[in-house]
């Protein structure tokens, strides 16, 4: 509770500071909104041309991509700037400064920068998902709404966990951004599309090795009633629990890395 109060103060101060340059602040929000609007447009163009992508129409694609984007954006407001990009704090030597303050390192990193620009992504994904839910209302039951709520929480925890893990790798590698770019960002591009269009080894990798499909693909299968196998159903239903476990794992990786940290030599 105490942390939330402090975090609220930081966010308030941050917004005040950002509002000094009002045009830049809103331009940042709009840029992120527009970027992902273009991505949704790309899906619309593809589904206009081909009707569906392996049975996934535009509305289905919106749920699939929207779950990924929304959970990513919520996680990014807390963890994108200084946790995922922990390498900047380490290589610049700033991390040592955090370590002598009376607050947990991760909490300080979260407080140090509010990811305001992700609000643009959150709004665009909320708009598209809401419109889509209205259109596919016939598929939505009370169970689906409850499940969607927990799937989103699981997805957010998973995205937060991924940002913490890839940031923490800087404790060992000093620079981990390039690794995150490929394993987190590039591999996550696969789950923008239904995994059924890719070779089966990719589905296995994205489910059991880099579990990005748990964030959106399996939950989407359940929401859109596209489950065909027991494996898909189990993975979909367990996605919130997997999210919690993944987040806990990421915290332990972070603490392990921190114990190993002995300064960057900057």
């Amino acid at each position, binding site marked *: 509770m105490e942390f939330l109060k402090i975090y609220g103060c930081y966010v308030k101060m941050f917004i005040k500071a950002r509002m000094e*340059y009002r*045009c*830049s602040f809103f*331009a*940042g929000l*709009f*840029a*992120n909104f*527009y*970027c992902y609007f*273009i991505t949704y*447009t*790309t899906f619309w*163009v*593809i589904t*206009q*041309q*081909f009707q569906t*992508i*392996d049975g996934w129409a535009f509305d289905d694609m919106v749920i699939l991509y929207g779950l990924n984007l929304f959970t990513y954006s919520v996680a990014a407001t807390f963890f994108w700037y200084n946790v995922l990009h922990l390498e900047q704090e380490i290589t610049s030597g700033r991390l040592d400064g955090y370590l002598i303050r009376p607050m947990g390192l991760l909490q300080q990193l979260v407080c140090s920068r509010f990811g305001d620009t992700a609000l643009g992504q959150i709004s665009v994904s909320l708009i598209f998902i809401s419109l889509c839910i209205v259109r596919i209302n016939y598929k939505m039951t009370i169970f689906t709404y409850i499940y969607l709520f927990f799937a989103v929480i699981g997805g957010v925890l998973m995205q937060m966990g991924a940002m913490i893990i890839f940031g923490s790798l800087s404790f060992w*590698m*000093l*620079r981990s*951004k*390039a*690794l995150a*770019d*490929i394993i987190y960002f*590039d*591999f996550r*591009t*696969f789950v923008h*599309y239904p995994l059924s*269009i*890719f*070779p089966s080894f*990719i589905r296995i990798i994205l489910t059991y090795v880099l579990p990005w499909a748990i964030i959106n693909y399996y939950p989407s299968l359940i929401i859109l009633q596209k489950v065909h196998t027991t494996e898909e159903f189990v993975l979909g239903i367990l996605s919130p629990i997997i999210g919690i476990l993944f987040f806990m794992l990421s915290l332990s990786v972070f603490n392990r890395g921190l114990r190993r940290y002995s300064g960057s030599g900057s």
Partner: protein
Amino acid sequence: MHFFKITIKNSIMYRWSALFSIIGSVLYIAIALMLWRFLYQDTPDMVSYMTKYTIVSNIIGMFYARGMAERIGGKVSSGAFVTDLIKPINIFTVSWQIELAGICSDFLLRGLPVILVYSPFLISNTGYYNIPAVLISIILGHILFLLVYSLLGFLAFILIEIWPFVRLLDDTIRLLAGGFIPLAILPGFISSIASALPFRYLYSFPLELLFATVDMSKLIENYIILIIWICLFAMLNIFTYRLALRKAVVQGG
């Protein structure tokens, strides 16, 4: 050459980062290829066309330097722009040289591995035309791209933070230049917006030239339009630069 050496050294300073960046480029193309292969699974000709299209468009993309806007914009917002005024060099020329060095190093470190990895696809899918015309269009496209982004950099005098506008431009180009989705499959109204803007000369034009025979008069017409766009953006750059020099106030030492 000095800029090139420095950029190469910087790029390979963190070897793992360089390696991951190569893998990332290869993977990005692989995802697009798998998508197109699936979508056109019933028409092998289209699969072959889209394979070539995706690989070559990604290679062409390496010749377009995005850093210009942030390089100039950064100098403007930090004030370093002023110290450049007393140097016997022009901010635009220096930034261009740095960007060219970046392109060369990027091509060596990422472009060549991508070409090597995907060479079997490029060789097996024959049917390349107008190669000299394609090279000219890429050079002109490079100049156009540079001018558009440098204009954005100079606008930092007004906009202060330019990254949102760089992003807006990046995303517009992503959809309307034909780098990922060929303009021919865009719906009518988006396609007409794309034809009215200069961005189609960056990807769509060279790719159309490369994969099909083109009527000479049409080719010349496209070149003329492209050169007109370049002249327009060059004039806008000169105008903005001169306006900036007239309005800029230097305070303190």
